[in-house]
């Protein structure tokens, strides 16, 4: 079962990617700056040059351009390249170029002086180049160039009467528009491509890292499987064949083989589950009581033992060790004396930080009478378990009756064992 997880970020390459992706943003901010400079330039020229054929039309055009500049400065980065915005850019740009000829005194456009509305249109070529690359920039540039030619007509100038200087003036305007669109388009594409390349390189590096980690893990796994599991399987194979060849098979031998297979089954399982299910300790000095108890349960012969815990139960390693030792003694006692069909070890760390561990069996039970126990020699074991738990500041309680099984309960109060938050 594979769960989708966001790929981890390598800090260094993330920074590189960030830089690469900033390029186009900086470029589009640059275009906004050009818009404002062009607008200011337009107003300045309109004020200084003065006399228009249609002054109202000229100032209306300036007002519309100012509003458009404001709109384009405020529109979000994502919509900078929307078709409507780009169409508006081109319409305003071409419109301003033609309008220049309409409002200027007849024949003035033929001169070499810059006219008020011929700079702003270049921003249309810039934004097209930014959005659609060299092709887009050149297209917009060409439309603006046509509009510039149209402005001469609107200014009642016959193109075939232009002098060489006037023709050169017109040509340089045309070339300016084309060049602006083409160059910005080229730079924008270059930046975009490098951003894509950085991202691809970044992904490749990440994949290589993950692959290396996977391989290393697989090798470690293979080594451990070879060291323990394969050896045991080979032994099982050999002993199984030998037993099959014997006329009578001792049941103890078969039980031993089953035991071996069982031990390797759980060893293999813990290997497989390790990366996912073994929780990491909250700090270096704590250990999982559940892990320790499962180890204990596995080592008990004579009675099947189930371990059930509420969470992993993280405790200081020394406490875990003592509790595990006490549980081991209790389980040995069950296996030897209780004639139980099964035993269950339960452990929990409650909200107050108190630890409870119980060892419960469904066996014969007994009369909990210290006098009688001392007489038949079983008191030593109980004393030893009790001693361990009391050393940790805890208590031991035995709940049993003949025929009712036995429950041994160890309790550790919160302050002494300094519970680790789960």
């Amino acid at each position, binding site marked *: 079962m594979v769960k989708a997880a966001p790929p981890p970020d390598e800090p260094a390459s993330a920074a590189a990617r960030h830089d690469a992706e900033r390029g186009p943003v900086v470029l589009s901010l640059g275009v906004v700056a050009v818009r404002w400079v062009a607008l200011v330039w337009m107003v300045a020229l309109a004020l200084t040059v003065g006399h228009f054929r249609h002054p109202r039309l000229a100032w209306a055009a300036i007002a519309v351009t100012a509003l458009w500049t404001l709109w384009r400065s405020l529109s979000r980065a994502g919509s900078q390249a929307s078709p409507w915005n780009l169409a508006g850019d081109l319409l305003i740009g071409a419109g301003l170029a033609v309008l220049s000829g309409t409002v200027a005194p007849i024949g003035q456009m033929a001169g070499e002086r810059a006219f008020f509305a011929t700079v702003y249109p270049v921003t249309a070529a810039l934004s097209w180049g930014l959005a659609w690359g060299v092709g887009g920039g050149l297209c917009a540039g060409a439309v603006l160039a046509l509009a510039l030619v149209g402005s001469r007509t609107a200014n009642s100038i016959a193109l075939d009467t232009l002098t060489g200087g006037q023709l050169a003036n017109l040509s340089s305007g045309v070339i300016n528009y084309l060049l602006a669109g083409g160059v910005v388009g080229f730079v924008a594409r270059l930046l975009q491509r490098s951003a894509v390349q950085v991202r691809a390189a970044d992904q490749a590096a990440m994949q290589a890292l993950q692959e290396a980690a996977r391989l290393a893990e697989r090798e470690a796994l293979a080594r451990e499987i070879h060291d323990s599991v394969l050896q045991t399987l080979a032994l099982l194979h050999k002993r199984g064949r030998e037993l099959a060849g014997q006329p009578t098979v001792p049941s103890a031998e078969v039980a031993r083989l089953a035991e071996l297979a*069982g031990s390797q*089954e759980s060893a293999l399982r813990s290997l497989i589950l390790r990366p996912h299910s073994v929780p990491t300790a909250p700090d270096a000095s704590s250990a999982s009581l559940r892990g320790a108890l499962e180890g204990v349960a596995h080592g008990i012969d004579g009675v099947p033992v189930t371990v*059930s815990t*509420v*969470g992993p139960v993280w405790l200081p390693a020394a406490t875990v060790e003592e509790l595990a030792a006490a549980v081991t003694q209790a389980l040995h006692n069950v296996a030897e004396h209780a004639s139980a069909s099964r035993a269950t070890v*339960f452990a929990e760390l409650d909200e107050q930080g108190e630890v409870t561990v119980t060892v*419960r069996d469904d066996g014969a039970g007994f009369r909990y009478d210290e006098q009688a126990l001392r007489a038949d020699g079983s008191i030593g074991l109980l004393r030893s378990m009790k001693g361990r738990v009391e050393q940790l500041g805890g208590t031991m309680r035995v709940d049993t009756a003949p025929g009712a*099984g036995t429950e041994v309960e160890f309790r550790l109060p919160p302050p002494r064992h300094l519970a680790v938050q789960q």
Partner: protein
Amino acid sequence: MTSPPDPVRVMVVDDHPVWRDGVRTDLEASGVAVVVAEAGDGGPAIELARTAKPEVVLMDLNLPTVSGTAAIKQIVEEAPHVKVLVLSASAEEPDVLEAVKLGAAGYLLKSATRAELADAVLRVRAGEPVFTASLAGLVLAEFRRIAAPGSTSGPSEPTLTPRENEILRLVAKGYTYREIADKLVISVKTVQNHVQNILTKLHLRRRYELMRYAIQRGLDRAPDLD
């Protein structure tokens, strides 16, 4: 408990044919059940649950393509009367709790004896939840997680009553329902009802989780179309 006259119709779902054979042999030798279908993957299991009409499904969780939990969800949705008993190799698999939340009626370790398996199949068909001690531990941990300070659960989510908590702890300690009934001086039926309620609350919790998940996703922005 008297043995019912007709054997339980069982479907065995496991990707190991050897294991399926073993379960079939054990069940049919015990006389309590007949294996009416076998499946090696979740997909065929969903299909066979419709056609072979088993009463009890013995389900492994580790399946090749369609997981056991996914199959349980589908089977229980389509036929709520079909009881699913999870047979898993390890109690530590997080999927075990998930499977029970999705509607599995119980869970048994693969190391259970032949008699325990037969008994569990009978009990599951009779509508009794089959809880092992280690599953009870997992469920206790799950409900404790909700009650913990700083948990993201809402106040209206189902929690355990003190009595349910007490019974679940006794199950976790290895007591049988009979022993719990004797200890608390109540009937076995009452103990079973409590355990059934705990299961129902667990299923409710699953719904809350889904709802919370949906709300969180809804507030999130749309996925990147990069």
